[in-house]
């Protein structure tokens, strides 16, 4: 076999592609759902935490910082394993999908909270003073004046972090979620051929290239004249 034929046989075997395409596509849907749930819930929860933190209630702030630091420090795979294999011993049982969603949502929310918080702090003090001097309340000022500016400033780190965390859905295979990588791994075992990994790579590109492209659109749309 020539080198070219070997590559073709191992990575682009048409028979294997045909046989395992349906299961990879199933995996693609699972990954897509998981990714969307994580993005929506992670961003919303992270924003909420940043808003709560801006009220500067000492005990609650300590709690937020403590929890957020833990979820930023732990590798996501460790969090998933703990949730999946350890929590059942204390009576909390969750499906692999829920574990993967919850773990990555908490990780994303933790990073997002820190990013939003940095954004809120970077808004000029004069903006608060101007708004409060017209009679706007603290919360009205936060929502109408400060957050819109904080969010715009933090769009690039926000989209980056969102993509990084969402890609970690691949490790959900360790908690038996039938997403792309776990489907591809199974297919690779059954077929004794690495072509399913090529298919997995293509499936990931199908999901994440549009996401990356979308983040660029959002970044340019939210930049405003200074």
């Amino acid at each position, binding site marked *: 076999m020539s080198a070219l034929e070997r590559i073709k046989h191992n990575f682009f075997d048409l028979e294997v592609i045909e046989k395992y395409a349906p299961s990879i596509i199933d995996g693609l849907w699972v990954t897509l759902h998981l990714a969307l749930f994580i993005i929506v819930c992670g961003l919303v929860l992270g924003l909420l935490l940043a808003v709560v933190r801006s009220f500067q209630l000492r005990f609650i702030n300590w709690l937020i910082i403590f929890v957020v630091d833990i979820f930023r420090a732990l590798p996501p795979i460790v969090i998933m394993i703990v949730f999946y294999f350890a929590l059942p011993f204390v009576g909390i049982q969750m499906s692999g999908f829920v574990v993967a969603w919850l773990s990555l949502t908490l990780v994303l929310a933790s990073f997002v909270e820190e990013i939003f918080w940095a954004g809120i702090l970077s808004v000029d003090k004069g903006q608060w003073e101007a*708004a*409060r001097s*017209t*009679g*706007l309340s603290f919360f009205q000022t936060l929502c109408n*004046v400060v957050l819109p500016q904080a969010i715009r400033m933090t769009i690039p780190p926000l989209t980056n972090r969102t993509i990084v965390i969402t890609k970690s859905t691949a490790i959900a295979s360790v908690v038996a979620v039938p997403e792309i990588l776990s489907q591809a791994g199974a297919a690779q075992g059954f077929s004794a051929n690495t072509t399913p990994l090529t298919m997995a790579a293509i499936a990931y590109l199908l999901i994440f290239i549009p996401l990356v492209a979308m983040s660029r659109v959002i970044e340019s749309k939210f930049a405003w*004249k200074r």
Partner: protein
Amino acid sequence: MLISIVNPNDRPVVLDAKGIVKTFGQVKALNGVDLAVTRQELVFVIGPSGSGKSTLLRCCNRLEEPTAGAVYVDGIDILNRGININAVRRHIGMVFQSFNLYPHMTALGNVTLALRRVLKLSTRDANSRGMEALDGVGLTDKAGAYPGELSGGQQQRVAIARALSLEPKIMLFDEPTSALDPELVGSVLEVMRRMRNTGMTMVVVSHEMRFAREAADRVIFMDEGHIVEEGTPSDIFEAPQHQRTRTFLSAVTQK
């Protein structure tokens, strides 16, 4: 025919600050300052930087919490913990050195935000009142422009319109022209002159001595957290009583 002249002393007091003390850590920014402003009066506050003039102004709408003293605006004790400070602040307009316009909103958006959120006007009513306010500062054609597209002078006039649209009982100006290029100062002072002529009560912290001379009813000279002396513009500028006032004025007018 007898022309009756209103005695300023008969006019109601709009702002009454008594014995204001403000300390920042070890630093005493204000050391027992009294400031009473009657309706339609224009009070000018001058003094070297660090003399406490901005802090005094900021104590008058509680952007700074005084360490001691009392502040009454239209008879309301604004330092009382029980009052709704937001309801009080809409009656006290403030204009800042650095304009502090909201960069993500148009000029009209800047003016109407408080009209919509504080006065709870409908968008339509807020917009028409906002356009009136922009008309008052000569900027109706810039209603749709973002702050980044406006000159400093235009930005400051939008900031004035933002405060004026709430129909405040008193306007506080914190060095409104200090951040402006010299050629843009005139347009802002012109707006302030017009406000004065329509009877707005104003407290102005500024270094525009010529404007003080022609427009102020009373000039207050502050140094090191104290009021050193106060009087009519001619009192202060032509016959200052204190050495510190003379030193300051000669330093300012030399440049």
